[in-house]
C-alpha cells in the first residue's frame, strides 16, 4: 500500500496534476486507478522489473495485447431503436447510464453530414432535392451505397491516411529536398481506397511492396511509405552512422504509430516506461529494416528512359568529374567548383518518371545494436529481427540476419488476424473520423497510457467484422453509416444528467458536430462557388503565394507554381505537401505540420482564421466567383439569391431572421460581400 501511495503521488506530480492531489485524495482511494497502473507497482523505485513485465502473464494483461473477443450482442430495453448490431452496443451503454439516444437528424442534415464524411464535399442542390423527394424506405441506404462507389471517397479518406503517416513530398530540414514523384504515393492511396483494397493488402504493399512478386510499379510506389519521414541531409563532415540511425528511427517509429497504435518510439532510448516493450524489442523491430535503403526507381517507358539517358549522360559524367575535384579543393577554388556543379545540375533534363521507393541492399546491411540512450555511439548488444515479445506468440525466435524478404515477414505478422492491434487500430481510426471521437480516444496509443476504450466489446466486434469481411473498409463504413447511432441529431441540448455523467458525449447520446477540416473547407468553397476542378490524380499542384511567403523558404526557387491556371482549383488533396511551406489558409485551419503522425485534427478558433476568411486571397477570390454564380443561376432577386446561397453553402434554407438580415444587406451592399459573409457562416463551416 505504501508503495502504491508513493506512486500515486508521483503520478499526480509527474502528470502535472499536483494541485488536484489533495481534493482527490480526500475523496477515496481509487481502486481502479491502482489497478490500471498495477503492473508497475511492485517496485519501490518505480521501474517495473523487466522479467516480470516481459515474460509473465502480467505483461499481456492490458486489454490491447489480448486478442479481440467475440462478445454476445448486449441486451437492450428499447429494441425499436436498434437499427443494426452496432447500435446494440451503443444503446446498451446509454441505458446502463440512464441516457437516451437523440432523435434522428433531419434528412437535410443527414445528407450534408454523409457527403462531407464520405466525400469531403457538400451535396449539390440537385442531390439534396432528389434525396428529400425519395420516399422509399431504403432511400438513405441507396444514398450510402452510391457514396461508397463515388470516386471522391478515396480523395477524402486518403487525406486521413496521409495525416497518419505524416506524408510529405519534401524531406524537411534545411534542404527540404523534393522527393521525385512522391505524389504517386498519394494516388496509390486514393486508388486503393476507391477500389476497396483489403486493408491487410494495403498494409503489405506499403511495408514490403518492393519485395513482392511480380514487381509492379504500383508496389514500388506503395513501398515509398518508408520514405516520407523528415530526412536531414547536410553539407560538410557527414556522420554516416548517425544519419543512418536517424533514418531507421523514423521508419521504425512510424510503423509502430500507424499500424500498431503504439508509442514504440519511446523504447528507443530506454525500456518503455509504461508498456511492456523493451529497448531490445525496439531494436529487434528495427532490424527488419536493417537492409532497407532509399531508392529512386525509374519507371519510365524504355523510350523515355533511353532519351533521358542519352541527354543526361554527358552532363552526368562532367558532374562526377567536378564532384571529385570539389572534394579535394579548398577555399575559393572549392566555391568556384561548387558553383560550376550547381550550374551543371541545372542543365540536366527533367527526371524521367520515377518511383520514390526503397530497396534491400544486403551488402550494406546495418548491424543493429541496442543503443544506450538511443545514441548511435553507444552500442550495446547486437540484436536480430524479432517481433515485440508482448505481441507475438510465446517463444517466437529471432530470425537470422540474412533472412530474405525481411519486411514481408514483418508485414505478414502485422497483417495477421492474430495480431491483436492492427485491426483494432484501423477500425478505431475509421470510427474517429466518423464520430469525431475514437472508441479509443488516443488513436496512436493503445498502450498502458492510452485511453481505455469507451466500448471495448464494440471495438472488438468491429475489428472481427473487418477481418471476417476480408479487411474491406467499405463494409465497415456501411455498417457505421447505416446505424441509428450515426443518424442521430447533433442538436439535442444536453440534459443535466448528460452534462453530469458524460459531458464529452463519449457514449454518443447525440452526434458530434464538427468543423470542416482545412481541406474540406477550401474544397467546399471551390464547390459552392462553382469553381471546383474535379480532375483526379497526377502531379501535385503548387499554388501561387505572395513573394513574402516564398521568402520564408530557404530555397525559394523550390516553389514552382503550376502553370495551368485551371489546375489551381483542384481539390486540396492534390496540393503539394511541402514541409517548409504550408499555405497560411491551411495552417490557420489546423492542417497538421507534416512533421509527425497526426491521428486527429485539432479544431481551433482564433482571430487569424477570421482574418483569413475575411481578407485572405482564397476566400475573396472565391467569394467573387460565388457571387457570379448566384447571378448566373437566380438573377438579381434578393430573396432568391439568399435562398440559393444558403442552399449551396449550408444545404438548407436560412431561418427567417437570417433571410431578413441578408436581404436587407443586399439592398445596400454588393453581392460579393454577401457571398463572403456566407463563407463565414457557422452553418457553412460546421457539419451537424
Amino acid at each position, binding site marked *: 500500500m505504501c508503495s502504491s501511495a508513493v506512486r500515486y503521488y508521483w503520478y499526480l506530480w509527474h502528470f502535472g496534476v499536483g494541485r488536484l492531489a489533495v481534493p482527490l485524495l480526500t475523496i477515496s482511494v481509487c481502486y481502479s486507478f491502482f489497478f490500471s497502473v498495477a503492473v508497475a507497482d511492485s517496485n519501490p523505485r518505480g521501474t517495473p522489473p523487466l522479467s516480470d513485465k516481459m515474460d509473465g502473464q502480467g505483461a499481456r494483461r492490458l486489454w490491447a495485447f489480448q486478442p479481440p473477443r467475440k462478445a454476445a450482442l448486449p441486451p437492450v430495453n428499447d429494441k425499436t431503436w436498434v437499427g443494426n448490431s452496432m447500435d446494440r452496443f451503443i444503446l446498451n451503454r446509454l441505458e446502463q447510464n440512464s441516457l437516451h439516444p437523440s432523435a434522428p437528424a433531419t434528412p437535410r442534415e443527414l445528407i450534408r453530414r454523409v457527403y462531407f464524411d464520405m466525400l469531403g464535399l457538400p451535396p449539390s442542390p440537385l442531390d439534396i432535392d432528389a434525396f428529400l423527394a425519395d420516399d422509399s424506405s431504403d432511400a438513405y441506404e441507396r444514398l450510402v451505397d452510391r457514396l461508397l462507389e463515388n470516386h471522391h471517397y478515396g480523395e477524402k479518406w486518403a487525406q486521413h491516411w496521409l495525416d497518419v503517416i505524416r506524408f510529405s513530398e519534401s524531406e524537411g530540414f534545411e534542404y527540404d529536398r523534393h522527393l521525385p514523384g512522391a505524389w504517386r504515393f498519394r494516388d496509390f492511396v486514393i486508388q486503393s481506397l476507391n477500389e476497396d483494397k483489403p486493408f491487410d493488402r494495403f498494409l503489405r504493399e506499403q511495408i514490403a511492396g518492393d519485395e513482392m512478386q511480380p514487381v509492379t510499379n504500383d508496389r514500388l510506389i506503395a513501398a515509398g511509405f518508408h520514405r516520407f519521414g523528415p530526412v536531414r541531409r547536410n553539407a560538410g563532415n557527414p556522420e554516416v552512422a548517425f544519419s543512418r540511425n536517424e533514418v531507421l528511427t523514423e521508419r521504425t517509429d512510424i510503423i509502430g504509430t500507424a499500424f500498431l497504435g503504439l508509442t514504440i518510439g*519511446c523504447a528507443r532510448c530506454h525500456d518503455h516506461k509504461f508498456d511492456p516493450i523493451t529497448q531490445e524489442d525496439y531494436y529487434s523491430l528495427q532490424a527488419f529494416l536493417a537492409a532497407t535503403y532509399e531508392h529512386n526507381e525509374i519507371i519510365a517507358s524504355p523510350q523515355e528512359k533511353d532519351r533521358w539517358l542519352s541527354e543526361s549522360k554527358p552532363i552526368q559524367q562532367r558532374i562526377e568529374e567536378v564532384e571529385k575535384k570539389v572534394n579535394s579543393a579548398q577555399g575559393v577554388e572549392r566555391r568556384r567548383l561548387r558553383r560550376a556543379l550547381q550550374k551543371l545540375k541545372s542543365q540536366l533534363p527533367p527526371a524521367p518518371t520515377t518511383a520514390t521507393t526503397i530497396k534491400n541492399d544486403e551488402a550494406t546491411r546495418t548491424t543493429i545494436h541496442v543503443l544506450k540512450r538511443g545514441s548511435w555511439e553507444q552500442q550495446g548488444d547486437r540484436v536480430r529481427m524479432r517481433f515485440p515479445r508482448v505481441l507475438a506468440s510465446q517463444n517466437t525466435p529471432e530470425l537470422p540476419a540474412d533472412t530474405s524478404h525481411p519486411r514481408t515477414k514483418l508485414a505478414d505478422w502485422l497483417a495477421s488476424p492474430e495480431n491483436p492491434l492492427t485491426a483494432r487500430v484501423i477500425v478505431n481510426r475509421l470510427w474517429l473520423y466518423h464520430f469525431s471521437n475514437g472508441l479509443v480516444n488516443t488513436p496512436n496509443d493503445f498502450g498502458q497510457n492510452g485511453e481505455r476504450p469507451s466500448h471495448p466489446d464494440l471495438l472488438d466486434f468491429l475489428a472481427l467484422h473487418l477481418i471476417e469481411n476480408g479487411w474491406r473498409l467499405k463494409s465497415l463504413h456501411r455498417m457505421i453509416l447505416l446505424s441509428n447511432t450515426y443518424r442521430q441529431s447533433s442538436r439535442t441540448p444536453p440534459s443535466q444528467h448528460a452534462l453530469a455523467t458524460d459531458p464529452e458525449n463519449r457514449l454518443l447520446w447525440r452526434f458530434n458536430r464538427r468543423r470542416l477540416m482545412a481541406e474540406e473547407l477550401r474544397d467546399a468553397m471551390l464547390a459552392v462557388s462553382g469553381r471546383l476542378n474535379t480532375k483526379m490524380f497526377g502531379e501535385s499542384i503548387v499554388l501561387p503565394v505572395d513573394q513574402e511567403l516564398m521568402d520564408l523558404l530557404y530555397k525559394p526557387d523550390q516553389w514552382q507554381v503550376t502553370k495551368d491556371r485551371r489546375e489551381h482549383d483542384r481539390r486540396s488533396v492534390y496540393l503539394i505537401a511541402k514541409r517548409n511551406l504550408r499555405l497560411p489558409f491551411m495552417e490557420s485551419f489546423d492542417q497538421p505540420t507534416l512533421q509527425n503522425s497526426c491521428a486527429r485534427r485539432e479544431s481551433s478558433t482564433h482571430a487569424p482564421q477570421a482574418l483569413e476568411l475575411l481578407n485572405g486571397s482564397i476566400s475573396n477570390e472565391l467569394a467573387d466567383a460565388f457571387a457570379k454564380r448566384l447571378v448566373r443561376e437566380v438573377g438579381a432577386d434578393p430573396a432568391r439569391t439568399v435562398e440559393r446561397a444558403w442552399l449551396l453553402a449550408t444545404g438548407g434554407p436560412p431561418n427567417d431572421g437570417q433571410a431578413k438580415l441578408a436581404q436587407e444587406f443586399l439592398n445596400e451592399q454588393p453581392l460579393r460581400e454577401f457571398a463572403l459573409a456566407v463563407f463565414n457562416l457557422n452553418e457553412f463551416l460546421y457539419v451537424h
Partner: protein
Amino acid sequence: MFTNPTDHRKAHSRRTRSRREFLRDACCGFSGLAFASMLRAEQVRRAPPNPLAPKPTHLPAKARAVIFLYMAGGPSHMETFDPKPLLNRLSGQKRPQEFGEAKYQSIKSDAKLLGTTRAFRRYGQSGIDVSDLFPHVATCVDDLAVIRSCYGDSVVHSAAQYELFTGRLVPGAPSMGSWLTYGLGSESESMPSYVVMPDPDGALPAGQPMYTQGFLPANYQPTMFRPGEKPILNLDLPHGISMNRRQRTIELIRRLNEASLAEEDHEFSARINAYDLAFKMQTEAPDILDLSKETKDTLDLYGVGSEPTHDYGRRCLLARKLVEEGVRFVCVVSGGGSGRLTWDAHDDIDENHLRLAVQTDKPMAGLLKDLKQRGLLDTTLVLWGGEFGRSPEAESLKGRDHHNLGFTMWMAGGGIRGGRIVGATDAIGLRAVDKPYHFRDIHNTILHQLGLDQNQLTYPHLGREERLTFLEGKLITEII
C-alpha cells in the same frame, strides 16, 4: 513523500491522455463519470472558451514578455563576450590534446587554432568583458547576465535551430513562443501574442517549422511579420474594399451567426468573438505598427533612419511597442538568406561579425535602454544568442566553423540579475567546463521567470505528455 524522486522526473515518456481523461479513467472508468464537473476547472488551460484568454501562472511571475534577439547562424563567443588570451597565444598551432575532441561541421582534425583580432574591455560597475564589436551593448552591461557556458546537441544549423527554439533536434515540436502563449494566453486584444520578425534578407535553414506551434492547436501559431510597411498577413482589406464597407460585412456575419445561435454554445460564441478580435486587430494594429509618431530621440536611440542600423532598429522598436501592447513573445532575427548574410562566418570571422554587429549593436542597446526608461525592462526578459557558437580553430584561414560545445548567450530584464557572468568555457573556448547550461536550462529559466513550471506546462502528443524542455531543464539559479 510529496516530492518526486529525481530519477522519475528524468523520464520523458509521458502519458497520452489528457489529464482530464486520465483522472476520469483512473478514478471511475467509463461507468461513472462523476468527476466530470470537477475536472472541468482543471481543463481551463487546455480548452477555455477563448483559448487565448490570460491564464493564471503556476508560480509568481517576474516577467510577462520575452524578446529574443536571435543571432542566426551562430555568433562567435570568442569575438564577443568570452575573451580567450590563451587562444591568441596558441594561434596557428594545433589544439593541444588536453582540451579533448570536438566534431565540426566542415573543418577537419588538422585545423589550426585561430586567435581573435578583437579587443576586449571591461565595462560598467560589474566590469564584464565586451569586445569592440558591441560598444553600445557594452554600456548596458550591468543589466546583462552573460552565460558563457551554453551548449547544445547539434553542430548543424537546422537541427541546432530546432533545438534552440523547440528543445528537439527534429522539426515538429512547438517553439518556446507557442508554449508561452499556450501557457499564459494573450494580454493583447489587438495583436497576436507571438510574433516573429525574420530578417528581410530571407529564411534560415530550419525554415518555418522552427517557429511554429508544432502539435499545439493553431491558436498558438506564430505571426510571421513580413518585411516592409504591412507586416501582418491578411490585415489589409482586399483591393477596392473600404473599411466602412467591410465593417458592414462583419456586422452581417455576426448577426447571421447570432441568429442561429443556441443558448450556451461556447464554441460558436468563441467564433463570434474571434471576428470581433479580428476587427479590432484590423483597426488598431496599423497604429501600433506605425513608427512615424515616435520621437526623433527614440528613433535615434534605435538607429532608425540611418544605415546600417535602420532595419534591425526598426524591428527592435516594433518589438518594444508589441511588448507594450501585451504581446508575449517577440523574436527579432538578425541574419537570413544565404549563409554569408547570417552570423555563419566560415570564411572570414572579422568581415562577417563586423558587418552584422554594426547592424545590431546600437538597436539592441537602444531596446534595452528604451525598455528600461519606460519601466518595461523589469517585466520583459531579453534573450540574446544564436543556435551555437564558433570553433576555436580556423576554417578557410580566417573563418570559424560551427561549434556547439561551449558558447555565450545573455539575458537581461524580466527579473534576471544583471551584471553577472555565469559559467565558463575552457581556456581556448572549446567546451563549457564550469556550470554548463543547455538550451533546455535556458528554456526552463525563461518559463520560470514567466511563472510557468516546466512539468505542469504539458500537452499530450503521441503517447507522451510533452513539454518544452523535453529532458528536464535546470534553473540557472545564479541569475534569478
